[in-house]
């Protein structure tokens, strides 16, 4: 397909959609599926057929609309009017919705309609998620009708590879995988690396338990990722891309087949593969599947996993940009990073650089979950305060409880307490508070959570996920977990807390890779902001939140108590 064919296809599809009476987009992403959206989808289809509207109405399985905790969600597009979005849809309500739009006098479904000015949507700025929920999950036509692949066409015809790197650099985009390395710089490094074989890799491992942004982008708007990858391939001089997807979770297989079909479809249309859009640029994309290891998110481990090996990180340097896959320079970025490329090319670097804060540009997608009213996937400009995110978009804390902390960055991050609710969300501020931006998990905790137990939870995760290569992480995390368990069951002394703190520093500084280096973060940040809870556990043998069982006593006390117990035990024997 060349440029004019692309525009032609966009026009045909736009016209087709304009002729429809309305389009029904039923969310088919994982959270809505777990709420039963498959039945809703079937009901919608049957209802449309019953009303004899098959020719005038589209029913499509769309990607995520964001309001995952209120699923299943159904979106209705009617001509130029803003879309109507319905929450908590059941098959019965689905039938009523169709009846309503088929005939003005149909059933009243306004109870499930989300008001157009609901802060959940109004406060967001959807760039990365711009298409998510608005297009079919798979079909290429819908994406192209919304301007898809024009950025690639533009880059191939109008821009030299250096110019693309420069544009990304100018936009101020920073890596969304957690560390926030400037993306433009990374691209330039790979472009300048001398080699005639280079690779582009997308990190979609997303092991942070409680985050699902990357997978949702992949599910809801896969072509945007492919387009971003192709642009990256052109900019750095690579002709092969890999999408490293997390595997081994329920439903992974279905998603994978879907992604495979999407890639084949783009190839069929000449938008990927050999001689992309009749240019001299070729770019192939393959999928590589993980098999359940958090450490695969670490870049060197990820590349080993792509090469079919045990994913044990290797020391850097050499960085992937110098020596990556099969020894070739490799560009490795997060899914969300790649999803930002197309808007930057289309709207210009300056437009992008105007969004966000001084040092953190653009928007960030968060998976907002936990004790908030509106949990889901949100996208906000960098620099928005936690308070706005949690109280305006998230609708505040559920069931009348008190906010206690926001956990960001998953097992590599930390907890931010109420007194810092007004600090802006960007790379630097989060770091200053002892957490990290992370890839975007944001879990809200209320007063029913015990912060020591939260730290224990994450340490348990790190013990499970440590690859075992280096001693500080392999054994150090286990020892930290032991100390935390002691604090949680009431058998710790202040000396154990000292040992714990000392271990935190050592593991942070001496571990080989990011997993070990950041494993102490949840402990360090809870110690920093909630030290009183640790002390209550140890000194008063009391869990303030009432979570920990506290059913043990310190060994020291046991040593004093033991002779007494033995005496009474033998005393019983005498009586008997």
């Amino acid at each position, binding site marked *: 397909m060349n440029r004019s064919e692309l525009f032609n296809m966009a026009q045909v599809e736009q016209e087709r959609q304009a002729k429809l009476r309305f389009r029904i987009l039923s969310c088919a992403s994982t*959270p809505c*599926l777990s709420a039963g959206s498959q039945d809703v989808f079937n009901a919608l289809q049957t209802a449309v057929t019953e009303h004899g509207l098959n020719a005038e109405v589209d029913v499509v399985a769309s990607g995520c609309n964001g309001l995952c905790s209120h*699923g299943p969600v159904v979106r209705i597009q009617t001509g130029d009017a803003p879309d109507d979005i319905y929450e908590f849809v059941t098959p019965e309500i689905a039938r009523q919705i169709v009846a309503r739009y088929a005939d003005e006098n149909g059933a009243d479904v306004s109870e499930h309609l989300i008001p157009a000015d609901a802060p959940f949507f109004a406060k967001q700025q959807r760039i990365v998620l711009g298409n998510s929920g608005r297009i079919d999950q798979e079909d290429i036509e819908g994406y192209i009708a919304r301007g898809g692949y024009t950025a690639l066409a533009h880059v191939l015809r109008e821009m030299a590879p250096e110019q693309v790197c420069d544009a990304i650099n100018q936009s101020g985009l920073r890596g969304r995988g957690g560390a926030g390395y400037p993306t433009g710089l990374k691209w330039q490094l790979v472009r300048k690396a001398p080699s005639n074989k280079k690779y582009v890799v997308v990190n979609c491992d997303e092991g942070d338990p*409680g985050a699902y942004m990357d997978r949702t982008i992949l599910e809801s708007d896969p072509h945007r990722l492919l387009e971003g990858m192709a642009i990256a391939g052109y900019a750095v001089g690579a002709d092969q891309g890999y999408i490293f997807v997390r595997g081994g979770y*329920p439903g992974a297989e279905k998603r994978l087949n879907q992604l495979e079909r999407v890639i084949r479809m783009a190839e069929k249309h000449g938008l990927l593969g050999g001689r992309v859009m009749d240019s001299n640029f070729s770019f192939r994309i393959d999928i590589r599947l993980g*098999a359940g290891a958090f450490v695969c998110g670490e870049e060197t481990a990820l590349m080993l996993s792509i090469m079919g090996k045990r994913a044990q990180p290797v020391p850097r340097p050499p960085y992937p940009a110098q020596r990556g896959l099969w020894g070739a320079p490799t560009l490795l970025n997060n899914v969300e990073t790649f999803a930002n490329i197309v808007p930057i090319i289309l709207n210009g670097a300056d437009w992008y650089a105007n969004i966000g804060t001084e040092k953190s540009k653009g928007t960030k997608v968060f998976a907002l979950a936990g004790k908030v009213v509106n949990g889901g996937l949100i996208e906000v400009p960098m620099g928005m305060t936690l308070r706005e995110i949690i109280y305006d978009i998230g609708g505040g804390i559920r069931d009348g409880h008190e906010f206690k902390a926001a956990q960001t960055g998953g097992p590599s991050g930390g907890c931010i307490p109420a007194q810092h609710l007004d600090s802006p969300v960007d790379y630097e501020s989060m770091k200053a508070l002892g957490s990290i931006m992370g890839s975007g998990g944001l879990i809200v905790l209320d007063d029913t959570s015990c912060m020591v137990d939260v730290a224990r939870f994450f340490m348990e995760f790190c013990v499970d996920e440590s690859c075992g290569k280096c001693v500080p992480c392999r054994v150090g995390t286990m020892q930290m977990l032991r100390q935390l368990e002691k604090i949680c069951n009431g058998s710790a002394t202040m000396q154990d807390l000292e040992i714990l703190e000392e271990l935190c520093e050592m593991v942070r500084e001496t571990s080989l890779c990011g997993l070990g280096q950041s494993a102490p973060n949840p402990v360090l940040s809870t110690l920093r902001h909630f030290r009183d809870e640790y002390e209550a556990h140890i000194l008063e043998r009391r869990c303030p939140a009432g979570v920990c069982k506290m059913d043990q006593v310190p060994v020291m006390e046991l040593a004093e108590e033991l002779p007494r117990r033995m005496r009474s035990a033998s005393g019983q024997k005498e009586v008997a």
Partner: protein
Amino acid sequence: MLVTKQQSDYAPPATEDPRMDEVARAVKRFGYQQDALIEVLHIAQRAFGYLDETLLTYIARQMKLPLGWVYGVASFYHFFSFEPPAEHNCVVCTGTACYVEGAQKILDLLEKEFGVKPGQVSADGRLSVTDFRCPGSCGQAPILVIDGELLGRETPESTIARIKQLLANDKQAKEVAP
């Protein structure tokens, strides 16, 4: 006196099993490339449900990899299993959001009712319980996956009810079809 296995003991088994054919085709499709080991293991586990010694040996020989290499890779990733799966499997998400919403209570009750801890199979081999971190449906926490079906907003009681139902259905089916 120890019996030492000969190299020939590890020769590929006769591929009469259609599932083995599937694995053979996959190895071939990837051009016998060693990098494709994880892909091949995925396909093998999908076909057989688990990875046994014969299968691993076959894969190793076909891909010209050391035996230990194949075992090392398979055991590194938690998705691969060396044990046959139980009849029914209940996966409880223990990701952060589900932890916050009380996944532990579900696990506790499962242990109390059926005597299985995460990673274990019940004594009669019919139910296995696994914990798993986050299929990414946090908005609907706590999440369960029972026999591949994703379920949101579960309580300990609803979980137990579902599993009892499943186990009872089997019994009925067996009684009907002798």
